[in-house]
């Protein structure tokens, strides 16, 4: 069962094996943090998008493989406040929760 069979070949670029990047996802009161193992990938070779509540990335490891992943967050995330860093082969994405979804302390009025 090869993952390559499902990949369309719409460009002339060599078809690289697509690998699912393993991720850890962490949550705090106001953020999500995604860490993905993408060894061998350089800074310029990562595409990250957030559309309709879906976080996606494709990270190309030289001429060897593409790490891909997609995670659903729904409307829980502020799409304008996503930060990405790449360090030692680990991609880290920090997503801010949408203001409406953050826990909020309600003060009882006197």
């Amino acid at each position: 069962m090869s993952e390559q069979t499902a990949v369309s070949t719409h460009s002339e670029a060599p078809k690289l094996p697509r690998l699912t990047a393993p991720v850890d996802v962490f949550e705090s009161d106001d953020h999500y943090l995604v860490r993905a193992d993408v060894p061998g990938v350089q800074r310029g070779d990562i595409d990250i998008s957030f559309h309709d509540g879906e976080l996606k990335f494709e990270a190309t490891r030289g001429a060897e493989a593409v790490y891909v992943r997609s995670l659903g967050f729904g409307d829980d995330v502020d799409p304008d406040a996503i930060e990405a860093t790449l360090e030692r082969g680990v991609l880290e994405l920090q997503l801010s929760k949408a203001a409406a979804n953050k826990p909020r302390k309600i003060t009882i009025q006197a």
Partner: protein
Amino acid sequence: MLMQWKTTPDPFINDFRSLSRQVDAAFRDLFPTPKARPTRRSFTVEETDEAFSLKSALPGLSPQDLSIEVADGHLKLSAARSNEAPEGFRAIRRERRNVSFEQSIKLGPKVDPEGIEASFENGILTVTLPKRAEQKPRQITINAA
């Protein structure tokens, strides 16, 4: 098979499985799996006329997490990485494995132990083991009669 990343179910919202996953994750955090026993690690080995090279993907490790030693005709490698939740965060999905390994590789007679070098770039460890001079192919010039 469809593309893997398309089939990933929506993990976090409006989904009963999300709750069960969070409960699982909470339990895993409370009762972490016992420290993984050191395991063997796979290396990609390449050979050229000049050298052998060993490569292994070790994402997230810093050079300090890694020890490389040449002793008694062996190359000894060990490393550890634990994926702690950052301060103030709790884990809701865990797929990245902790890395812990110790491995000893016997050096063949072709390798020059003095010349072994290692580099670590973008989470990939490369150990270069140069061949001894007498092992390298050598062009023999035919002397004119």
